[in-house]
């Protein structure tokens, strides 16, 4: 009888076309753990890629927007960008110190320059005026400053973006997966081991009780250990009754032994200079591991015998490939390992270390590989349990296909299947048969959350596919099962469910009346989901007519999901990832005396508590003109009106009303449009004359007009284009033209980004003292409110927010990850004796725990 697993998390009512021939299965989904941090969607291609029209239209190409990024950097971190250069030049400038005399000819007195700057009006100020001194300085220094910054920073930024882009395309760090299952002493108990935390640096051990019929239950709070780096891979194995957990971080690898009672016992920690890329636990000898690093070295490691280098070769095996990724696993012989790189797989013998073992797999003709195909994952499929399959099987995954190889018959794959995953397949697991003589399920998981299941039967000891491969429901497929939410919540939920899949652990609970399989999935957001799959006889041969899918969620799962969702929605909405710093210290200084004390007080209080500075902490804002109202006929207005109407289910009425009274406004609207188009086309001509690759600006009326921004852009283009004008325009007319330009509405802000990059000297002036713009600032109180853009204060806000803590007390199922775990204090103390490198108890510094996007690492 051919059998296959099927399941679905979908409610059949919500998904009409769910007409699989296998039905009657119930799937359910439950989150056991919920991370406190708001899920921060990872870096997207949109953040890095050039969005404008690229000159070569022939092929779709990815072009990284270095200029835009550099421009942002110069704006936001002018001190970092220009600081070192300023330090170098400091000797040659007298900034008002008395010691530096005028005798030295190399020293320039900047007193007047500074004075000019003191009254400096930032870009955008219509009354901006450049003194001759300033102009001279910027003309002389501009090239030097500009070139230096361009060369140094540009190179570094380019490199950084390149690595980010590579990681975005193929995030090899999470190869192998960071979710492990350790079976317990009793048959239906076990532990899940997985990382959580913003930096994935908290290793959790969650006890789980399985049940043959009901859903698994989390027993108590997870105990946790705080590590120094992000956990990339978790490997678990039980050999000879000893349950071991190995963890790979970027520069550390660690090994724990799990006792049935009591906390995990740390065995040893290994520190590596180069980044570790793979770790695996021996299926033969307890406590033996294979570790490999980016240097090309592969070591056999055991707490008793220490490290033994088996293989070291910085070059790739078959042909030259730039990737330094390596992977190591075991074979049927406990002393022989397999070492993988992107081009192939080869044996490495621990008894006679050499760099040229026999090849087991190579990207080439034997496996009829495609052009550009590379090894992404290699895994030894043998286990100590006697399986129906031969213990000599190895799995190799590339971006296109899956290969099964027998180590006795190298190079020629026994089986090849095109998996069709649209994300790198970095997770795989072979499971024991759900009942004797059933085919063995082999799971394959892509980083994007897609799952494939193959059924391997070992009749005659050669592996065969017992049934056509299947796809399993991914997390996002469970979306229709959730209640309908408001758009914001819906988006939050969607993002959360779409988070990359970073761990996969499947369990076949022993002694179930009907064969079943539990599938735990860890997402990058820190959620652990599970689904239960039932084994069903293959009914496809009997009738083509599919029965209606009888898939539904169990009530308990529904309740659990709702609780999870509730907690998720209670998390404060994520702030925009970056807002330009609008806080102005200068403005504070200019406040009246009576306000000053209050402001300082508020500031201090906020700093002491480490939270965001809110408007309420500051004094009431200086009286100012009300912000300009909405453009009466802007598109947003209509949209929001219409939305409001449709929320109240009066959309049709609104529409009718619009149709009747639309003529007059339309006229005015078109006039408005023409005006903006005119002005923007003017500015675009101006800018494109200088910079040929500027995309044409999109004419769109300014939303909430922010004089600060708008004007800065105009005046900036004014400054920039000055050089050209000087040649062509009579002197007496320049001022008039300048005034005229200053009054013009701004072009799209995207335009001005490139000029800023091109003229960093004026940039350095503007960023050195960003706050001295009293006039425009007071016009728009909105830009003054402090949206702290700094990541530090941002995360501090969340970790200290009493609300986010109280979430846990409300939710019995989501465990308090932050509550100090008394059991673990002792662990840390006991580690002193045996561990070389202790995982520190310190909370990692906030900056370190940030996703890198927030704080670009520039090598400074």
């Amino acid at each position: 009888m051919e059998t296959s697993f099927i399941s679905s998390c979908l409610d059949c009512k919500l998904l009409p076309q769910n007409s699989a021939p296998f039905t009657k299965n119930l799937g359910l989904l439950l989150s056991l753990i919920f991370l406190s941090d708001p899920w921060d969607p990872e870096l997207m291609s949109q953040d890095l890629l050039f969005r404008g029209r690229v000159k070569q239209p022939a092929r779709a190409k990815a072009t990284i927007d270095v200029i835009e990024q550099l421009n942002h950097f110069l704006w936001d971190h002018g001190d970092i960008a220009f600081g070192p250069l300023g330090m170098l030049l400091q000797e040659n400038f007298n900034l008002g110190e008395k010691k530096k005399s005028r005798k030295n000819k190399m020293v320039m007195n900047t007193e007047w320059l500074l004075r000019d700057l003191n009254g400096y009006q930032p870009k955008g100020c219509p009354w901006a005026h450049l003194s001759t001194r300033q102009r001279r300085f910027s003309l002389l220094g501009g090239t030097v400053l500009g070139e230096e910054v361009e060369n140094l920073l540009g190179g570094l930024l380019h490199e950084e973006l390149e690595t980010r882009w590579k990681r975005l395309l193929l995030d090899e760090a999470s190869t192998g997966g960071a979710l492990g299952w350790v079976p317990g002493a009793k048959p239906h108990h076990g532990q899940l081991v997985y990382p959580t935390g913003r930096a994935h640096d908290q290793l959790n051990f969650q006890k789980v009780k399985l049940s043959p019929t009901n859903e698994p239950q989390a027993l108590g709070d997870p105990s946790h250990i705080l590590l120094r780096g992000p956990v990339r891979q978790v490997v678990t194995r039980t050999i000879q009754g000893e349950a071991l957990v190995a963890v790979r971080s970027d520069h550390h690898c660690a090994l724990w032994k799990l006792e049935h009672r009591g906390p995990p016992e740390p065995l040893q920690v290994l520190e590596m200079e180069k980044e570790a890329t793979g770790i695996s636990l021996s299926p033969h000898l307890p406590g033996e591991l294979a570790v490999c690093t980016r240097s090309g070295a592969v070591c056999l490691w055991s707490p008793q015998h220490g490290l033994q280098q088996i293989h070291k070769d910085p070059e790739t095996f078959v042909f030259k490939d730039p990737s330094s990724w390596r992977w190591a696993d075991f074979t049927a012989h406990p002393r022989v390992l397999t070492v993988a790189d992107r081009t192939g797989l080869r044996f490495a013998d621990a008894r006679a270390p050499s760099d040229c073992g026999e090849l087991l797999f190579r990207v080439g003709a034997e496996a009829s590989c495609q052009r550009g195909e590379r090894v992404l994952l290699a895994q030894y499929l043998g286990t100590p349990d006697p399986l129906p399959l031969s213990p000599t099987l190895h799995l190799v995954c590339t971006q296109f296909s899956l290969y099964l190889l027998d180590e006795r018959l190298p190079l020629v794959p026994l089986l090849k299947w095109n998996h069709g995953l649209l994300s790198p397949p970095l997770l795989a697991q072979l499971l024991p048969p759900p009942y004797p003589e059933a085919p063995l399920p082999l799971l394959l998981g892509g980083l994007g959350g897609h799952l494939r299941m193959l059924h391997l039967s070992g009749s005659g000891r050669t592996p065969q596919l017992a049934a056509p491969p299947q796809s399993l429901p991914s997390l996002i497929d469970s979306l229709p099962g959730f209640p309908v939410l408001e758009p914001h919540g819906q988006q939050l939920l969607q993002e959360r469910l779409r988070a990359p899949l970073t761990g996969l652990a499947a369990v076949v609970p022993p002694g179930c009346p009907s064969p079943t399989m539990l599938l735990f999935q860890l997402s990058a957001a820190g959620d652990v989901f599970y689904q239960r799959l039932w084994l069903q006889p293959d009914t496809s041969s009997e009738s083509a007519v599919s029965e209606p899918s009888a898939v539904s969620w169990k009530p308990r799962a529904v309740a659990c999901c709702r609780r999870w969702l509730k907690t998720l929605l209670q998390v404060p909405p994520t702030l925009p990832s970056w807002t330009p710093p609008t806080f102005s210290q200068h403005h504070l200084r200019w406040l009246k005396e009576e306000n000053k004390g209050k402001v300082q007080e508020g500031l201090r209080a906020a700093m002491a508590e480490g939270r965001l500075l809110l408007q309420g902490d500051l004094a009431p804002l200086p009286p100012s003109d009300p912000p300009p109202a909405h453009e009466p006929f802007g598109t947003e207005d209509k949209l929001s009106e219409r939305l409001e109407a449709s929320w109240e289910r009066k959309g049709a009425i609104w529409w009718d009303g619009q149709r009747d009274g639309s003529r007059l406004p339309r006229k005015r609207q078109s006039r408005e449009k023409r005006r903006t188009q005119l002005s923007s086309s003017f500015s675009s001509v101006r800018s494109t004359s200088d910079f040929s690759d500027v995309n044409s600006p999109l004419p769109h009326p300014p939303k909430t007009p922010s004089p600060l921004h708008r004007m800065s852009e105009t005046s900036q283009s004014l400054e920039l284009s000055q050089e050209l004008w000087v040649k062509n325009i009579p002197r007496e007319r320049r001022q008039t033209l300048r005034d005229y330009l200053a009054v013009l509405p701004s072009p799209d802000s995207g335009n001005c980004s490139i000029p800023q990059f091109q003229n960093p000297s004026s940039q350095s002036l503007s960023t050195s003292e960003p706050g001295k713009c009293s006039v425009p600032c007071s016009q728009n109180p909105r830009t003054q409110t402090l949206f702290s853009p700094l990541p530090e204060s941002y995360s501090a806000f969340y970790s200290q927010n009493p609300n986010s803590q109280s979430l846990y007390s409300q939710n019995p199922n989501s465990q308090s990850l932050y509550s100090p775990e008394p059991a673990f204090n002792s662990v840390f103390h006991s580690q002193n004796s045996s561990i070389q490198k202790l995982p520190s108890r310190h909370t990692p510094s906030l900056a370190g725990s940030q996703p890198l996007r927030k704080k670009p690492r520039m090598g400074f």
Partner: protein
Amino acid sequence: MDAFSEELMGFVQKDNQVEASKDPVPEIHLPWLSQHIQSTGSHGQKGTNFAQTTSICLNFIQEALLKHQWQRASEFLQCYLQTLEDINSQKRQMAPEIIWKLGSTILYNHPKSNVETFSAFADRMKNIGVQNYLKISLQHALYLLHNGMVEDAYRNLNQAESWRYGEMSASQEKLIKLIQAYRGLLDYYTWSKKRTEVSSFDMDGFATNAATQDMHSYFRQASVNLHEIIKIPGVWDTFVKSYVEMLEFYGDQDGARQVLTDYAYDNNFPSNPNAHIYLYKFLKKEKAPEDKLISVLKILHQIVPSHKIMLEFHMLLKKSNKEEHHKLGLEVLLAILDFSGCTENITAWSYLAKYLKQIIKGKHREWVQEGWSSRKDWWPTFHFSYYLAKKNWKENRILALKKAFTSGILLGKGCKYFMYVSKQGHKIREKSIKTMKKFVMKHNILDSEEH
């Protein structure tokens, strides 16, 4: 990932041009790259509506296949046929193969499909374009074989073989060879059927003669084709076996031996343990001298030390007169037990226990020490741990006793495994325990090292 640097040429032209020219590394191809680029919105080739709809349709089909929704997939496939008229010539050329792959998978699994439908589909697809004729014919034939329709399959292969289009390309040639080989295999199948018929015949000479002649003609047809395919480097176990069987039947022992030797020892062929096993079995049947058998198995021992035929090899070596063979005999046994699949192989353990005894009595203790030296750091945990002692004793007492004896010899009387088993054995008054203990006390290699 140098694709990336090339792509940046628009910005940093000169640098990357140098880099691209000096480094002609083939790039990694990421099928999900286009998705990433498309997600940035305005950038990238948008593609026509036609291309979009077909690609969406293809996704639907693949999804349905992976969910085993054959009916749904077949409905989508009907729409997908439009790709055959794609304006993009590259896609148009690829289309028949994709359709064939999808369609054959659907028809293979669809509960309502039958051989006629499949054949009709295959015949249609063969003749769209010219590139896929041979491939589809071969797969069609295999499908027919799978359904037990040998004659149809044969006819199909025959037809495919005679098909010609233009000049033969390299890939075509390979496929033709493969088709011929399969035809040869079917000829062999008929031949062996005839052979059983002839042997069961109890008729007059004339009928037998005619049948034998008939058989012979099949042999000739098959041998030509099979001989061709096994010249090409590859894994051709089935073809080689049938070819050798026919050669043997007609008494061409030299030919058969030659074929098997070439298959085993040709360096162009991928390493294949089966080739050595076939050769060994053939030689054994031929009653070849033991030295020859040993030399064949020696190579197999180097390739696959864990093969079960190695136990036979051990016996051969044991019987041999040469001392070096005796020494190798121990190594062969130890090598078998190195492998995780053989840890509970009771035959191997009992051979080892017996052989150790024999060696020690024969005063070759240094052999044991030599073999042990490379294993002493991991065998104790791999074979002789306390956990395994308990487990083996519980599951298989004889195995436990054999292992305990070996562990006692190799690790001395203080070994956990030995102690546990002898204690348990003492409890139930197992007879052999005493003799075992006595021997171990006297002869374990640990104590003898100290002396």
